[in-house]
């Protein structure tokens, strides 16, 4: 248990369906770790358990050396895990800046201070020009970026990204990839779920492959993406 995040034998069933079965892995501090797998593989469910949005049926999750399973989502955010939602969840009636200010309030005492943090992050994510727009008026790619911005504003040690590149044009994907690389260079550990292989190969130092809730492969991109089972589960889904 030397990792920043260690997941041990985690299970989650929805009625009869084993959404996540006996998944274990470790994320080392400073790395970018990707979770891939076909639709319905259990990736989001796994995220929800790490972030405290769902309770695992069994298994343990440690973050920074301490158990976090059973904690509420807000307690886990306070411990230093930030997350985005695959189906974006902005605060729709509030401005882009207010959305990010709320994230920043986790570690700031005043609105002015939070606003400073928010503006820096909006700058970083190319959202500065839109900071006074109502979040509900953003396009999907911008909403995805807002998800990242709001999570970053909480100053996480570990950032969970759930398909933030889905639906983006290749140039936009490249831009986000560059931003994430920058963030990682400044010490942020990232755990990302991604279908866009172009982004995964560009970012991840290690990959975990899920299928039907179970781990079918784990390792560096070079080894994992050469494995038969992985190629088969992805056949026709994405170009590698």
């Amino acid at each position, binding site marked *: 248990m030397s990792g920043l995040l260690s997941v041990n034998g985690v299970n989650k069933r929805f009625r009869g369906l084993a959404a996540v079965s006996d998944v274990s892995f470790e994320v080392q501090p400073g790395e970018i770790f990707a979770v891939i797998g076909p639709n319905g593989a259990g990736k989001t469910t796994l995220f929800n358990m790490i972030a405290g949005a769902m309770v695992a049926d069994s298994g343990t999750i440690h973050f920074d050396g301490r158990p976090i399973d059973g904690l509420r989502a807000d307690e886990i955010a306070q411990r230093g895990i930030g997350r985005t939602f695959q189906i974006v969840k902005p605060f*729709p009636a509030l401005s882009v800046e207010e959305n990010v200010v709320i994230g920043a309030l986790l570690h700031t005492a005043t609105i002015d201070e939070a606003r400073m943090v928010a503006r820096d992050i909006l700058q970083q994510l190319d959202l500065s020009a839109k900071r006074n727009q109502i979040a509900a008026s953003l396009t999907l790619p911008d909403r995805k970026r807002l998800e990242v911005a709001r999570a970053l504003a909480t100053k996480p040690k570990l950032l969970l990204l759930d398909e933030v590149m889905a639906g983006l044009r290749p140039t936009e994907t490249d831009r986000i990839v560059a931003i994430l690389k920058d963030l990682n260079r400044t010490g942020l550990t990232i755990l990302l779920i991604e279908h866009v292989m172009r982004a995964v190969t560009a970012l991840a130092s290690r990959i975990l492959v899920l299928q039907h809730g179970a781990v079918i492969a784990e390792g560096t991109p070079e080894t994992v993406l050469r494995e038969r089972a992985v190629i088969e589960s992805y056949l026709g889904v994405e170009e590698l």
Partner: protein
Amino acid sequence: MTALWNEIPRHGKWLTALLLLVFIAAPLVVDRYLLSVLVLVLYFAYLGQAWNLLMGFAGQLSLGHALYLGLGAYTATTLWLLFGIGPWIGVFVAIAVAAAAGLIVGWLGWRFGVEGVYFALLTIAFAEFTRIGFDHLGLTGASGGLFLPVSPTAHDWWNLNGGVHLFYYVALILAIAATLLAAWLRQSPLGYRWLAVREDPEAAQAVGINVFRVRMIAMLISAGMTAVGGVFYGFYYRNLFPSQIFDISRSIELILGPIIGGLGTIFGPIVGAIILTPVGESLTTFMQSSGLNVPGAKSIFYGIILMIIISLRPSGVWPWLAKHLRLDRPKS
């Protein structure tokens, strides 16, 4: 506070000052009847602010604020009648009692995942149960009512006993204080957290907000403030009946102003009260003078006004008005 004031555009400051002046000077010009209508305007502006904190800011619908109104009214009047404790001290006990009741309602609802409409039903149920309880509480006169002595010539502000002028200025101070409090809370970290929880509780949790706690604080403040309105009601009308003060129509009438004026806005509850109260009062007068006093007619009338305004201005009158007066927040 000064930062808030500075944010208002120049002509907005003049308008605010003018409005204040009008309200301060009104008793010098208007007659007693009109002044009593203005008392109600201020009273509903005040209660609207209290309710709006919970609904407009924290996003939780209470249809049972009569509970806190009634507890406030009964607590302070009973303390005065039985123990001679004046309303200026009794009000603090009233706040504590109502806030405690609010915490029980909030705890039962939000701890056990009672959300939305079901939460609203829970708030109604609590007000109703409490009404039934008070109907049988001998200490406060049960269903027969509680009465404070009326002396038309009294000028006793310490015991909140006096003419309409006294109550007018008390209501004015309450309305101004509640508006300042709402404005201050709105731009505080707590206010931002309320909005986050209102907009999306799950996303709010994901940025480290304790949704339950934040809602409980909203309830605490809202219920406490409403209790102060109840103390005012008790000493102003000087008679209390469980069937009136705890009635659902009390809960409904205090939420119409903020809805019509604009939920989650600072001036919405004031604008709503200014629009709605005089209309309601003229209707009452008209029905009485024309002999058309059909029970429930006022509720139906309010319902119609609500439907018309909500279909024309779904987010309320104030946001629309603010835009036309160019008073919307300048984006810095």
